[in-house]
């Protein structure tokens, strides 16, 4: 493994970065800050100064691509839901819930639907911001995600997850039951498997065709980050000192062990993001280190943050559309951009010097 400093560009936003996201097309990147503002940049090697949008009177609790092309959704602890267009003058207020937090936001990749949760309530909206339906969950929502084709919406909560059909107005839930508090949700790219992360440092999953369930354990911490590789062969996860990648082929994950990638360090993986095209995973650690790890056993690349930022956890990782740019955010408020070129240059430089 090589240790590099391969940063193409860097920004210091002056407040903790709590989340990072791209729009559905992967052309813009947004960073939510601990002061309630949002930073917006083109997701390319030419990214220059970030545009600042003042958003929440508090902070953004959830950031996701919006249904509108090039736009983002943000839900805050001020009870406000915004749609943010990087090209517009001001964010659009979509909803407001006094004295509540908007903990989760999501939109469907086909641009038809938006959804958010406030406490136990889940709201389904269309791209015109008309409320299509609401439902009450058994507890506050842990996570929220549309299936890849936008036909279903999954919300996780205490003792399971609820599935809703987006074309059905009555919001009748199909209940997936498993004891425990379910936090994050992730859909397999084929839309046939739903995964949740649990309070108890474990994953649970359901294959919806036959309700066959899966359980993955052995993590050192809660799994805050899950990312399926482009073709869905692996699910990369945080929560251990290595990147844990579960196989979803050849009968897996049932009865299969995971691939473990990345340095076995004292610090845990805090964030993962699969490459949009190749079988490659980027992972960030609790101390600011970043690993780019191919799943086929090729050499991993380990990248140090600048010395001054070392020790600050990676809180967000995002690839752009082409997968030639990787944005990495640190809790300290520092954001880095790596490009294929900047990483290759650093690798070549390290090779000649060794």
């Amino acid at each position, binding site marked *: 493994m090589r240790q590099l400093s391969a940063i193409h560009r860097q920004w210091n936003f002056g407040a903790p970065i709590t989340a990072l996201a791209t729009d559905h097309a992967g052309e813009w990147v947004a960073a939510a800050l*601990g002061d309630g503002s949002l930073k917006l940049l083109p997701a390319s090697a030419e990214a220059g100064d970030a545009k600042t949008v003042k958003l929440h009177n508090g902070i953004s609790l959830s950031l996701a691509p919006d249904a509108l092309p090039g736009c983002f959704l943000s839900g805050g602890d001020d009870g406000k839901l915004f749609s943010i267009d990087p090209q517009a003058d001001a964010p659009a207020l979509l909803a407001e819930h006094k*004295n509540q937090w908007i903990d989760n936001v999501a939109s469907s990749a086909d641009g038809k639907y938006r959804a958010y949760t406030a406490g136990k309530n889940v709201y389904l909206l269309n791209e015109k911001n008309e409320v299509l339906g609401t439902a009450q969950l058994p507890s506050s929502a842990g996570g929220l995600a549309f299936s890849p084709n936008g036909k279903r919406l999954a919300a996780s909560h205490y003792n399971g997850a609820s599935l809703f059909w987006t074309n059905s107005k009555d919001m009748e839930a199909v209940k997936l039951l498993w004891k425990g508090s379910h936090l994050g949700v992730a859909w397999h790219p084929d839309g046939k498997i739903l995964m949740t992360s649990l309070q108890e440092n474990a994953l649970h999953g359901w294959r919806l065709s036959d309700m066959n369930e899966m359980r993955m354990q052995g993590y050192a911490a809660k799994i805050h980050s899950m990312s399926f590789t482009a073709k869905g062969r692996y699910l990369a996860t945080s929560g251990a000192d290595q990147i844990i990648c579960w196989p979803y082929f050849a009968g897996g994950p049932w009865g299969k062990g995971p691939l473990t990638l990345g340095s076995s360090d004292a610090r845990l993986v805090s964030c993962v993001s699969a490459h949009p095209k190749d079988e490659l995973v980027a992972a960030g650690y609790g101390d600011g280190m970043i690993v780019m790890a191919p799943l086929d056993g090729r050499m991993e690349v380990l990248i140090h943050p600048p010395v001054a930022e070392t020790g600050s956890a990676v809180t967000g990782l995002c690839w752009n559309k082409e997968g030639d740019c990787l944005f990495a955010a640190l809790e300290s408020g520092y954001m880095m951009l790596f490009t294929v070129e900047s990483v290759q240059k650093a690798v070549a430089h390290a090779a000649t010097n060794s």
Partner: protein
Amino acid sequence: MEQIPVTVLTGYLGAGKTTLLNRILSEPHGKKYAVIVNEFGEAGIDGDLVVGADEEIFEMNNGCICCTVRGDLIRIISGLMKRARNFDGILIETTGLADPGPVAQTFFADADVASKAKLDSIVTVVDAKNLPQRLKDSNEAEEQIAFADVILLNKTDLVSAEELKKVEHAIRHINSFAKIIHTERCKVPLDQVLGLGSFDLNEILKHEPDFLGAKEEHHHHGHEHHGHHHHDEDCHDEHCDNPEHHHEHGHDHHHHEHDHQHDSTITSISLTSDKPINIDKFEAWMGDLRANQGPDLLRYKGILDVAGSGQRLAIQGVHMMMEGSNLSPWKENAKRQSRLVFIGRKLDEKTLRDGFKNCAAA
């Protein structure tokens, strides 16, 4: 980053929690608090960072039957911690009916919360006038007293000296270790309720000479000490915060007025040992105790003289969750004595005493 201190305010409906909360928020201490309240907007809270919480009790699937946490607090504290730090502490006001157990356990069981926040103290406000009735008709009032580090015995102006004595006795019977402060309208110096580090093993050691004081020996050996009642009369100052006074009250009442007991099932038991402790035996004993009686063990703390170690071992726990660490060496010439206290339901003093005795190194 330093963990942010969290103070939990409990107390039965009408005891004066909101009054205490507003007092904390309005005094000119220059500090900013985030406040988590149970019912939003019922009585006005003056702070600008106030979050409403719906109590969500989650069982943990970790094989621990009494291991419950507050999902709402995990969610809210994790959210608050994302902010660029603009507050100095968190205050949690629980509902009048809340069980403090899951609240306390959240700070042990959730690693994300534990990494960013630490439980400072549980402060319970009780109403001197209505407490006797509350203890009769609810379990919650009793549990809130049992879990407390500090008890504000409030509305002392509404009761006679005799009633006050009785109510304090009832409190001491449940929890003989908390600091009791007599108040009217929750008027209390804030340094008596905030920043106490009651769950901090280092703090437990700092107070080691007085930790459940040397006076605690009365508890076990001093049944002949009958003569402390005069202290009660000294104590009607609403600001009385002399822990010694309270300790004295406690011992007397606890041991000599059993005929006044209500139907409370929660009691406090304090154990001491002058013989060094065999740590393996101790861990095995505590392990069994927690496994068999975890749900009934509400809180426990101890400082142990471990055989073969120059260090003092501090332990503390809530239900089945226990933590401990070797912290600092015994002072030169200090009397090395192990002390352990339990607050819990259906505690059998003799069994516990024998069990602890058996932990002595051979």
